[in-house]
């Protein structure tokens, strides 16, 4: 058994930012990061970006921390090792190599894993996931090789970005989705129509509301049979069907979980001296005033920073952020700001945008803006961010937003960006 003041489970951006922040505040406390991947911290964002996947950017650009960084900051990185058991009373984490770590303070930044595609024949060769740098390296090799026939399963950002990359390399792509349209439910049919039109003009067939019943082939994939009986030949399959949050071993230790690991606004779990940050975190967001699982880079990084500060007693700071993420492909720039779920009790306004192939939706709950989506209107993301933060009552402006007589850019005076406001709060 080894003892560390701070034990961090997860070597991604949340866990690594937490370690970096702790080290700034506590120069002497011992820090260990346990990562189930055999790598230093890297940029998961880059793994679906065309220049990197196609080798136009150096492969090395993916690494965010060097061996020297861990050494100089006296952070011990356990690589390729999983945490398998937590004894929260004795404050001990058991590792997959049989060793165990005792901690004073623990951070669970375990992240998300690719949801495994579980259909008949899905163990054949030629099936590629995309979550880790090793997954991405395999896809990158395929993308840079001879064009193949691809079946893409799933219809969210990563699918969209990888389709564009493979199409640009001459691959034949068939998109097979359970949903009715691309990006459902993250975008509306109206927003997606021009995007799908472009995909189809480029020769990408979209097969909707269907599942794969069986993967065909001997040991190597040769095609799929769909639930409606249709067979589609292919050389490779990319099942990008979302993520799982593996919290079973954490639950067993008495840490409260739902879809993710429950935390309050300070990222504290229900168990003393145990915090959580990153994609697995389901916490109270005091900006959005609701419990959220964000699952994006921006939130994971900031949660790591806040957990690091709170763990090292630098401050007691809440997580409050209007996060956003974007996806690019086929000439479209799509943006999601804040909480974009069009839940039943929310009002969705299609804000008129005269530009061709552009769209903007504003999501309102209890009279206030909660989030918004933009297609080819990135200039509106800043305005939506400001409206969410300002918590302005929009009840008397809904009609004006619908007919475009209210300009959302003028509703809130220019304010600092969300992150710089958070930073200025840090400094207070």
């Amino acid at each position, binding site marked *: 058994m080894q003892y560390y003041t701070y034990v961090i489970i997860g070597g991604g951006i949340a866990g690594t930012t937490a370690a970096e922040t702790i080290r700034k505040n506590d120069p002497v406390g011992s820090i260990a990061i346990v990562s189930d991947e055999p790598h230093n911290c890297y940029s998961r964002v880059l793994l679906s*970006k065309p220049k990197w996947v196609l080798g136009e950017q150096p492969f090395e*650009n993916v690494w965010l921390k060097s061996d020297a960084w861990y050494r100089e900051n006296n952070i011990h990185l356990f690589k390729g090792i999983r945490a398998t058991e937590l004894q929260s009373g004795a404050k001990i984490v058991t590792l997959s190599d049989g060793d165990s770590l005792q901690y004073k303070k623990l951070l669970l930044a375990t992240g998300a894993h690719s949801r495994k595609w579980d259909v008949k024949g899905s163990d054949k060769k030629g099936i590629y996931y995309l979550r880790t740098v090793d997954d991405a390296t395999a896809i990158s090799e395929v993308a840079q090789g001879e064009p193949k026939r691809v079946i893409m399963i799933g219809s969210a950002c990563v699918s969209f970005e990888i389709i564009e990359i493979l199409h640009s390399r001459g691959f034949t792509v068939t998109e097979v989705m359970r949903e009715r349209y691309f990006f459902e439910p993250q975008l509306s049919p109206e927003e997606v129509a021009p995007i799908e039109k472009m995909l189809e003009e480029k020769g990408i067939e979209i097969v909707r509301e269907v599942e794969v019943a069986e993967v065909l082939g001997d040991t190597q994939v040769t095609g799929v049979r769909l639930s409606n009986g249709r067979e589609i030949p292919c050389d490779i399959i990319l099942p990008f069907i979302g993520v799982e949050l593996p919290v079973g071993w954490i639950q067993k230790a008495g840490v409260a979980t739902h879809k993710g690991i429950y935390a309050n606004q300070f990222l504290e779990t229900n168990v003393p001296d145990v915090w959580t940050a990153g994609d697995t975190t389901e916490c109270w967001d005091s900006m959005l005033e609701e419990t959220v699982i964000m699952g994006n880079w921006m939130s994971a990084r900031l949660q790591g920073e806040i957990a690091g500060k709170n763990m090292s007693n630098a401050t007691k700071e809440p997580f409050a952020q209007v996060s956003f993420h974007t996806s690019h492909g086929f000439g479209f720039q799509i943006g999601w700001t804040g909480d974009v779920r069009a839940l039943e009790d929310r009002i969705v306004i299609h804000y008129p945008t005269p530009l061709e192939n552009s769209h903007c939706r504003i999501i309102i709950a209890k009279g206030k803006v909660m989030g918004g989506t933009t297609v080819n209107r990135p200039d509106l993301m800043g305005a939506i961010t400001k409206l969410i933060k300002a918590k302005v009552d929009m009840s008397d402006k809904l009609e004006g937003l619908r007919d475009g007589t209210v300009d959302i850019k003028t509703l809130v005076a220019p304010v*600092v960006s969300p992150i710089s406001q958070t930073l200025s709060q840090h400094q207070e």
Partner: protein
Amino acid sequence: MADLREYPRTAEGSNISKVVVDRDLCIAAVSCIAVAGEVWELDDENKVVAKDANAADDATLIASAEACPTKAILLFDNSGAQIFPK
């Protein structure tokens, strides 16, 4: 064509004379703003722009470029050579 924005850096004693943002790469993860909020801000398109390329010392500026998950910030030294990403 990459959409590049260049910012000259004239801070005294600095070994970095030019800062470039590749707007095609920028995804507004805002990690750079977290490290060097005095240098970087988001514009209306939620892309990072330098509001003052001289506002941080070299180490902070380099750290802010290193924090970018897409390596969208490029740094050049006084001889014009790219020093980040290496």
